[in-house]
């Protein structure tokens, strides 16, 4: 519930959620949520609405695009108050005492410069580069300026994993974690860590906005979320995108000079990215449908289990999970394994079991392609030529391997009928980064 004006700083909320006494304040502004002109547009999410779809029988129109954040219609008002940056300006807020590698330190300095110059920038860092630690110096500087900072990611797992790490590094800074499944109430804080959907509730709030894993669904190719980002940041704000696998749209912005870019082609432990081995197998699709797997795949799985080498086994579709699991079961394999997918109600428990060595392997959809780290694992991808696996997904999957300095290498096995264009793109991208790394 909204009690004080500080709950409205840099936000945009429905007037129905704001008490009368606040609405009367001169610091509180209002604007129409859904505007009917030549076309119908939503001020919160920027969508142009189709008249037939948006029409209510009472003559009003509603926004069906951002409706999951509570419905806005032509009667609704968006309520907001200007961001006053009411934060203390501690000289040194960073309590983290770790060491950056020289390459990381270089990047960290660059990030400070980007924030100082209010730039729009993409940091293209390989999987396992240690992105979070590289942000610390920049965050520390921004906090000392009394800046309001947002860190957002399309993936809920990513923000949940990020929050405690940032909190541990900046113990005295006020911060809040916001996502759709959280019951933590909103609090006016200097640092906001949230899913990109939550940014739709902000208006000209952030002096510095960082978008992690910017290329991933649902952010990539979603105009509403892109609009939300532009709306949430102050017009003078600095924007930093982070990813290991930028999409076409980002690359285009770089080409047009709208976005600056820097590369971090090497992992924090200075080892190269593991390159995938392509293994052609015939009729994999049909075999899996019959709850069977090709001999070489079963043999590999057996030998990994025997060596106590833990791994992730990726499949394209949810329906493949049960079939592959059954195929392995028919093989009388003595191993502890499970299956997991995005809407799996026990997903968090299974991931945690894998993390705590209670499982030998996990059969998964692309949901585990990023955001989670299991030290020292290998990965196997079945039907790697399936259209579900984008080049970015394959790069991310390969990037699960060799992240730990105690085992900076490992197997990345792509099983496929044919070497698709997507697989080739993935190989090229990994190879290019490794070539860049070798020149360092």
């Amino acid at each position: 519930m909204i009690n004080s004006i500080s709950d409205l700083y840099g936000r945009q909320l429905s007037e129905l959620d704001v008490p009368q006494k606040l609405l009367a304040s001169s610091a509180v502004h209002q604007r129409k949520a859904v505007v009917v002109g030549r076309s119908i547009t939503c001020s919160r999410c920027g969508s142009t609405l189709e008249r037939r779809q948006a029409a209510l029988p009472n003559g009003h129109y509603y926004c069906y695009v951002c409706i999951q954040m509570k419905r806005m219609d032509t009667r609704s008002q968006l309520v907001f108050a200007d961001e006053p940056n009411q934060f203390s300006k501690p000289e040194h807020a960073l309590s983290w005492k770790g060491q950056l590698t020289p390459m990381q330190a270089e990047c960290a300095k660059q990030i400070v410069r980007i924030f100082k110059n209010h730039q729009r920038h993409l940091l293209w860092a390989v999987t396992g580069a240690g992105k979070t630690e590289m942000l610390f110096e920049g965050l520390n500087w921004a906090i000392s300026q009394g800046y309001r900072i947002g860190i957002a990611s399309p993936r809920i797992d990513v923000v949940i994993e990020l929050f405690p790490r940032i909190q541990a590094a900046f113990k005295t800074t006020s911060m809040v974690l916001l996502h759709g499944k959280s019951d933590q109430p909103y609090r006016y804080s200097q640092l906001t860590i949230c899913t990109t959907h939550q940014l739709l509730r902000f208006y000209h709030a952030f002096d510095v906005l960082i978008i992690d894993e910017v290329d991933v669904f649902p952010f990539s190719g979603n105009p509403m979320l892109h609009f939300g980002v532009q709306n949430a940041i102050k017009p003078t704000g600095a924007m930093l995108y982070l990813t290991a696998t930028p999409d076409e749209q980002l690359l285009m912005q770089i080409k047009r000079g709208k976005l600056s870019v820097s590369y971090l082609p090497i992992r924090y432990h200075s080892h190269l990215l593991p390159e995938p081995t392509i293994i052609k197998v015939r009729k994999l699709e049909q075999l899996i449908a019959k709850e069977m797997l090709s001999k070489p795949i079963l043999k590999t799985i057996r030998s990994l289990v025997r060596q106590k080498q833990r791994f992730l086994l990726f499949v394209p579709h949810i329906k493949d999970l049960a079939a592959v699991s059954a195929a392995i079961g028919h093989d009388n394999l003595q191993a502890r394994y499970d299956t997991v997918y995005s809407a799996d109600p026990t997903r968090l428990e299974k991931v945690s079991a894998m993390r705590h060595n209670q499982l030998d392997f996990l059969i998964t959809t692309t949901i585990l392609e990023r955001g989670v780290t299991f030290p020292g694992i290998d990965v196997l991808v079945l039907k790697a030529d399936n259209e579900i696996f984008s080049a970015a997904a394959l790069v991310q999957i390969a990037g699960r391997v060799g992240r730990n300095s105690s085992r900076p290498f490992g197997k990345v096995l792509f099983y496929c009928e044919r070497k698709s264009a997507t697989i080739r793109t993935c190989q090229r991208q990994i190879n290019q980064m490794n070539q860049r790394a070798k020149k360092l």
Partner: protein
Amino acid sequence: MKNCLLCQASIREQIGLDDLFSLRAAKPTIICQACASAFSRLSATPVCQLCGRKLTAAMTDPCYDCQRWEKQAAFSFSNRGLYDYNAAMKTYMSRYKFLGDYRLRWVFMTEMKVAVTRTKRLVVPIPVTEATMAIRGFNQVVGLIDNCRFVNALTPVAATKESNQSAKSRADRLLLDQPFKLVSGMEATVKDAKIVIVDDVYTTGTTIRHAARLLYQAGATSVTGITLAR
């Protein structure tokens, strides 16, 4: 290529074999196969003859709740539910009604029309209160039968102070707390008519039975119900 109204996944035009051989036009694809299969049709399972709920092996027909209704009600009433009120249907209802996504009426409109028209009865939707109408901007029941002929014969009575609820028995409550009244001018339409009341969900049955009793009192000869979910 269109997108599923429920999950946004893109749907290719799916034309099944039965569409090719039937004379009907191909179904417009509003939701994807995965979303469609999460709903469970009640036409395929044994249901209670009076309220239309899905019967499990341990249940009698009519079900226990309906036997109780039968004891106290002085009129005959039976309801047909199109879909089981399962998790997918609950999610649908919360998005349609409580989030207020009026477009979602399209998901079941065609099926509702077929079911309602087949009864050849006068169609009377359950009304919503003025307060709900003001917030939501639509009546979710009317939305579902937007493409049918219907009459708004019922209207909610203004909320009265709840008087000493606990002192009354279940039967008393049923008799006393009539939440609807007849829209003035509807007397002749309702008298001697065969009526089907339409509601979105049948949960306890209290709402729809209040409406049925009122319509019988107004002279209807037969009243039944159709709900999207049971």
